């Protein structure tokens, strides 16, 4: 079940069996497909009516009508809508269908159509469709109702697909940003002979802390540094493993003959270090960068 809810509709992961699982989850079967197909003979006419209606509705709202800049664009989107509608009624529910729906979802997402806008529009669409079906099939209300239910299932399946693409697009953005943050360079700056400064900015996770350690140790070797100032003013949060890593980094620097000063410890970081039981006897610290550099220079003098 979890698989159905979390993975089946995701991009690139669907196989024939996961598609079948997803359809089963929506209680969609071939009979629904056949039901919907009964609408095919009048679909063109129905579609035109609904779409006209729908755009009249959309243009009443500033927010929604902003999406449409010209009559040409409206005409193009209307044509797309009609195709969408035809597929809703007659397309086979398979991988190709899912891919197509996801593609449309991505276009919507990129165009800045919010989920509210999207679902609201779909609901409006479905309502009109329901009214039309009732009107056209007055003679057989039973069939009309079943037909409507089938269409609703397919529509909900569509919406699920579209919303998955929304979520995926957001996740993708977040992933990219996290990647960028973790790739932030850690510059090693030489202040004077034997003294280097490493300003750390951004979020420190474990992998970045490791890169920082390597940069610092290589920096000591490269600049023949005997003192290091590690400034973490720009670090938002430090968790336990990262605190330990910072301490280990400074110990490793000492093994290479360089003394280090930690500056810019924020209130939160200080508290987390104290909770860890770090004794600051083992660490040289200074309140701000200026006094940290002064302290490091004094260390150089002492030799």
């Amino acid at each position, binding site marked *: 079940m979890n698989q159905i809810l979390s993975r089946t509709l995701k991009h690139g992961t669907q196989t024939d069996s996961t598609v079948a699982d997803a359809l089963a989850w929506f209680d969609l079967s071939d009979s629904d497909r056949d039901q919907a197909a009964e609408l095919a003979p009048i679909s063109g006419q129905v579609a035109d009516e609904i779409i006209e209606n729908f755009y009249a509705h959309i243009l009443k709202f500033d927010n929604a009508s902003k999406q449409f800049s010209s009559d040409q664009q409206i005409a193009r989107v209307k044509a797309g809508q009609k195709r969408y509608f035809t597929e809703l009624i007659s397309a086979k529910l398979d991988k190709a269908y899912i891919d197509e729906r996801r593609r449309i979802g991505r276009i919507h997402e990129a165009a800045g159509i919010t989920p509210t806008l999207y679902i609201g529009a779909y609901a409006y669409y479905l309502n009109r469709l329901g009214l039309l079906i009732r009107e056209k099939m007055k003679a057989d209300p039973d069939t009309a109702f079943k037909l409507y239910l089938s269409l609703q299932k397919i529509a909900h399946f569509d919406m699920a697909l579209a919303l998955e693409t929304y979520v995926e697009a957001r996740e993708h953005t977040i992933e990219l940003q996290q990647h960028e943050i973790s790739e932030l360079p850690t510059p090693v700056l030489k202040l004077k002979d034997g003294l280097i400064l490493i300003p750390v900015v951004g979020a420190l996770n474990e992998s970045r802390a490791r890169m920082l350690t390597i940069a610092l140790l290589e920096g000591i070797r490269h600049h*023949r540094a*005997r003192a290091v100032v590690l400034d973490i003013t720009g670090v938002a949060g430090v968790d336990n493993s990262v605190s330990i890593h910072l301490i*280990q*980094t400074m110990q*490793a620097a*000492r*093994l*290479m*003959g360089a003394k280090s000063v930690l500056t810019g410890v924020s209130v939160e970081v200080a508290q987390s270090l104290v909770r860890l039981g770090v004794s600051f006897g083992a660490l040289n610290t200074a309140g701000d960068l200026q006094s940290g550099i002064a302290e490091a220079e004094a260390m150089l003098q002492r030799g």
Partner: protein
Amino acid sequence: MNRRVPILRQGQTLIASVKDAVSDQEMRDLQARLLSDVVNTGASGAIIYVSALDVLDSFGSRMLSDIAGAIRLRGARTVIVGIQPEMALSMVLLGLSMGLVETALDLDAGLEILGHGVRL
């Protein structure tokens, strides 16, 4: 085979250069010879040069600490020189922080600490 770690003398300083893959036995041998050399020559400082080492295990680093401690008791100082970044990191991860032994990046810096080098 027992390769001996060479001990050089430069003024008042003894310099022992530890090669790669040094055995525990060689370390013990180094400890004994370095101590007696400090006693015999009246040297004021010793440098143990470890830059050629790839790894230093817990025994090795304890031996270095012990050597430094013993030399200290003879009134001389010891500086461990040439620990490379990779080794520093792996030592710290193993919890080997070498206590209070003095360290230096290279021979120049080590000699300077002992007061025999030319100030940079």
